[in-house]
């Protein structure tokens, strides 16, 4: 019983982590058809930015809640700036090229940014645990849960709801669907495609940075954290169906619960869980759980 409860909570927390990490990626893919490897850099920069912020606020002795907000704001600011620079300065030049080539552009950017981290922050690692410590914990039976983890789940739920609502029920969301389908038509019917692209990429970048920021208190902010995140996020997004927000949510839940169950019940298979689940889902549904409708061609 306790195990079942633990699996559920651990799964939820892990799913929240995956979802927060993947949502920016799936958004950018969904709209721009770009499999954005730089997402790992956004995550890393967000985390480093957050660690810097936490360093500032820990020294300044601000209240914890304020510190947390400061951390998130600073990280998202980092995402905003990076997003604008990359989209306006680089991606703009390669739109229309082969999908794979664009993936490689983002990969190259990612490589460069990895070293930019070294130039800015050096090779040492940073800690930002204060917000997590401040959040405290609650005890449920034998289990102790960190309130910060519960906060993460809440953030994920809010993000998912916001994104779903924004895409399905707002004017902008529907315009986005048009841009996704065809840029030229969208422009011909009055949609500012350039702006949509920039906005999407910047929002995606900010979400990536947000992912890094909220994870920063839990982890050691160190070189290479971006690499791990990329594949994880790709897997979640592929399971859910590329570009689908609800898919990313369900994908994150499936992987989260499966992984938690594996750790508790069969730790030896933990390493395969994510790829195993991905392979199984893709075998059953070749294009992921949520597929975008294809027009009739004949």
């Amino acid at each position, binding site marked *: 019983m*306790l*195990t079942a409860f*633990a*699996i559920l*909570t*651990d*799964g939820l*927390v*892990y799913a929240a*982590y995956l979802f927060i990490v993947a949502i920016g990626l799936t958004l950018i893919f969904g709209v721009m058809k770009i499999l954005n490897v730089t997402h790992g850099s956004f995550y890393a920069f967000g985390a480093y930015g957050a660690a810097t912020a936490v360093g500032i606020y820990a020294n300044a002795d601000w209240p914890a809640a304020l510190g947390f907000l400061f951390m998130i704001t600073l990280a998202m600011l980092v995402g905003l700036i990076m997003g604008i620079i990359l989209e306006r300065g680089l991606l703009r030049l390669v739109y229309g090229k082969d999908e794979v080539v664009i993936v490689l552009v983002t990969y190259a950017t990612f490589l460069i940014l*990895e*070293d930019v981290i*070294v130039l800015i922050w050096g*090779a*040492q*690692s940073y*800690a930002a*645990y204060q917000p*997590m*410590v401040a*959040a405290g*914990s609650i005890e449920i039976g*034998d*289990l*102790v*849960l*960190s309130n*910060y*983890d519960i906060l993460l789940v809440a953030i994920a739920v809010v993000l998912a709801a916001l994104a779903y609502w924004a895409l399905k029920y707002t004017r902008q969301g529907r315009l986005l669907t048009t841009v996704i389908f065809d840029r030229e038509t969208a422009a011909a019917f009055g949609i500012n495609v350039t702006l949509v692209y920039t906005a999407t990429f910047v929002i995606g970048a900010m979400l990536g940075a947000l992912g890094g920021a909220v*994870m920063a*208190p*839990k*982890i*050691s902010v*160190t*070189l*290479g*954290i971006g*690499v*791990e995140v990329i594949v994880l996020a790709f897997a979640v997004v592929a399971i859910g169906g590329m570009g689908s927000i609800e898919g990313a949510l369900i994908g994150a839940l499936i992987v989260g619960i499966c*992984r*938690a169950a594996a*750790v*508790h019940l069969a*730790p*030896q298979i*933990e*390493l395969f869980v994510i790829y195993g689940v991905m392979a199984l889902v893709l075998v059953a549904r070749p294009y992921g759980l949520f597929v975008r409708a294809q027009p009739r061609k004949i």
Partner: protein
Amino acid sequence: PAHAQQAPIKIGIVSFLTGPAASPFGIPGRNGAEIVLEAFNAGKAPAPFDKVGFGGTKLEAKYVDEAGSVQNVVTEFRNLVQRDQVDAVVGYISSGSCLAVAPVADELKALTVFYDCGTPRIFEEKARSYVFRVSPHATMDGVGAARYLVAKKKNLTSFSGINQNYAWGQDSWRDFAGAMKVLAPKATADKVLFPKLFAGEYGAEISTLLTSKSQAVHTSFWNGDLESFTYQQSARGLDKRMTIIMTTGEAGMWRMRDKLPDGTIIGGRGANGPLARDTDINKWFHQIYMDRYNTPPTYPAYQMAQSLLGLKLAYEKAKKGDAKPTTDEIAAAFKGIEFTGPAGHVKMALGNGHQGITETAYGTYKFNKQKNMPEIVDIMRFPAECVNPPAGIDADKWIADGMKGAKC
């Protein structure tokens, strides 16, 4: 005057300069090399290491990144030897790198000293001619941890392990669990967890451990993962329920400071850092490192220093007159050499004189609030012959057979 003209001796230093292993191991290792080589060139190392450079000839270092695939590592090794014509290579942190480089080094007849990689397989699988490792292999870490735990926790009935799912983590756990079987046969291994390397998120693992009845948990995590695990577990109070044994904790304690829970059992892959004895040469090394980098040297720096000291001695032992000794002569001199460095007394006792052994030490972590400094208290030392297999016996087999012949 003759040797003022002599071309410098070139040494290739290979260490992680980028990637996740750079900060905990690669950079301290590299830094250790830098200051020690500088001291050698200035002739300022304490006796018997006080000759300028190696036997009077200055040294020149070339630093190479170990990051990348084994393929890249081997290619860069060849480049060092064949393109840059270095006289010796000192380096490597990953056991995979060492295993791949060893045969190439022998084939190219290139003198190579491994400084941090831990796998005992290097000299167990095959006799090596030009490859040396001054630092003891990793068996000592698991055995030492088990001995310390058993000595400190009398009524241990159950323990768990959380180790990274790759060779280092698996080997570390195998050694520790094997030693526990010998030393505390009544205690059972409960949860055996192997999260992915660099997983970053350990929520489910911590829950599993929280719901277990173990009194201790063993981990060979390092840096990023170690810190993430430490922060996450302390938010959920795992250390209040059981003692954590961190076999590489020493390398991370200066960074985690008061976040590392008091009472954690700390190892440093030998008597390194705060676990090292208070000798003159240790004080010297600690001082020059502090002076330059403003932070105490951690075990990779010690391992690098020990390796360079060993190489220097071997070189000088081989050197006859003014001529540069040949690689074969240095290798022959290196075999079975003994010396005392910052991390204590080294004896090249295993692997036909190619593999060093030293004593090891474990202690209990305590953050000294007054001094605002981490401390290791309750240090227990284990002689080299107590935690290392005797010559000619494979480490795994030695543990499995009950660690026969251990002299404690």
